[in-house]
């Protein structure tokens, strides 16, 4: 149940972010909604599930848009794994943790993406990339994270309730 629902959410997000979402670009910058979903989910669950959903979301991107598959899968897996790590007992209704984590994760992910796809090919002009892409994306993600975290939180709670009820019947 959980697997199916969140697989669908990741796939639906990919389809929407490649088609409809192109219309909400601000100054040519799009939010990385896949990253927000991965971080939110990892935060609510744990590091292992975060790594799985991250790997899946990254792989989906790689299948379509990367010339070498596996780079985004690896990066997203790390993001999911780390985001699910030290926050198992944080207060889940609070928005501070997801906002801070999404901002940090976006900066880290985009920086790693820059290093792997640009710096390694001799594009050393880091400050320009930072100003024109990395920081705007992080800012956009930070705002959208509030809504997407709320959504993932709601879906997760519904599923958890269902699971608990089923477990109760079994006993």
């Amino acid at each position, binding site marked *: 149940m959980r697997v199916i629902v969140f697989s669908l959410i990741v796939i639906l997000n990919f389809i929407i972010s490649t*088609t*409809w979402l192109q*219309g909400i670009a601000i100054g040519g910058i799009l939010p990385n909604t896949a990253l927000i979903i991965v971080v939110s989910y990892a935060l609510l669950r*744990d590091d292992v599930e975060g790594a799985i959903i991250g790997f899946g979301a990254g792989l*989906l991107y790689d*299948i379509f848009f990367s010339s070498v598959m*596996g*780079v985004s899968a690896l990066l997203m897996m790390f993001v999911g794994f780390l985001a699910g790590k030290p926050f198992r007992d944080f207060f889940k209704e609070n928005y501070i943790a997801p906002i801070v984590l999404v901002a940090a994760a976006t900066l880290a992910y985009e920086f790693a993406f820059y290093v792997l796809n640009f710096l390694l090919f001799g594009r050393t002009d880091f400050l320009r*990339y930072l100003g024109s892409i990395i920081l705007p994306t992080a800012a956009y993600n930070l705002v959208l994270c509030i809504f997407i975290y709320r959504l993932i939180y709601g879906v997760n709670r519904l599923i958890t309730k269902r699971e608990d009820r089923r477990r109760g019947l079994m006993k």
Partner: protein
Amino acid sequence: MEFLRRHKKWFIVGLMAAALILMAFTGRQGYEQGFLRSSVGSGIGSAQVLFANIGNWFSDRFEFLRNMNTMHVENQRLRAENERLQADLDRFLHLNEQIRILAEIVDLHLHYDEYNVLAADIIARDPGNWSASFTINRGSSSGLAENMAVLAPGGLVGRVARVGFNYSVITPLLEDGTSVAAQSERAGEFGVVSGDINLSSHGLLRMSYIEQGADLSPGDAVITSSLSAIFPPGIRIGHIAEMGQAAGGLRYALVVPAVDFGELTMVLIITDTFEFILE
């Protein structure tokens, strides 16, 4: 799941290994279509077509309502332009006929008389901010192959980067790291036009490797050159906006692309390949 949690370290190492193996496998020179790309690509590709169509339906209605008053003026303008183009076309056909006759006289074989062209809709765009790649709703089932030239009204868009069964990924000129051999239309000066992510956000391309004494000035049209390895010669790329001095005694130019990449919804693919084959 409990099993995975108990062996967390090994699980993460396993996922990393899987990603690395995938990279090593798909990064090989000459790697074409994998099982993952063809199967998942086709499935999600169809869903993207559906979503794109729904989105287009709404934006078409919206456009229609918004443009209702300007449509009459637009129509008038288009009619006038059509008249002008018709006259141009007649003149062109007449010239073409003359060229053919002259070529016959001097026994010159004319290349690339006519291209076979296929139209395609853009269905999805790269959701990241590092790349401007997009996918179209045609693939190997329509006869597309890698490195075919992609055009739009105005001129060159880019090339076909990867082909799936029912979709292909297009790498536009604006994409960082792509380059195309170019020349100016007026003086025939050579250069290389390439995409640069810091320029493409302003809608510009860079033309580099221009000789110091080259006869180039702002406003000159830039076209694909006969030196290009994959593009047919003579396709319009754009025009020069500004000249600059690069390091090492060479000059560069900023080029305004002829195609409006932001407004692109449909492209044409030349289905003949011009790929230069090394013997």
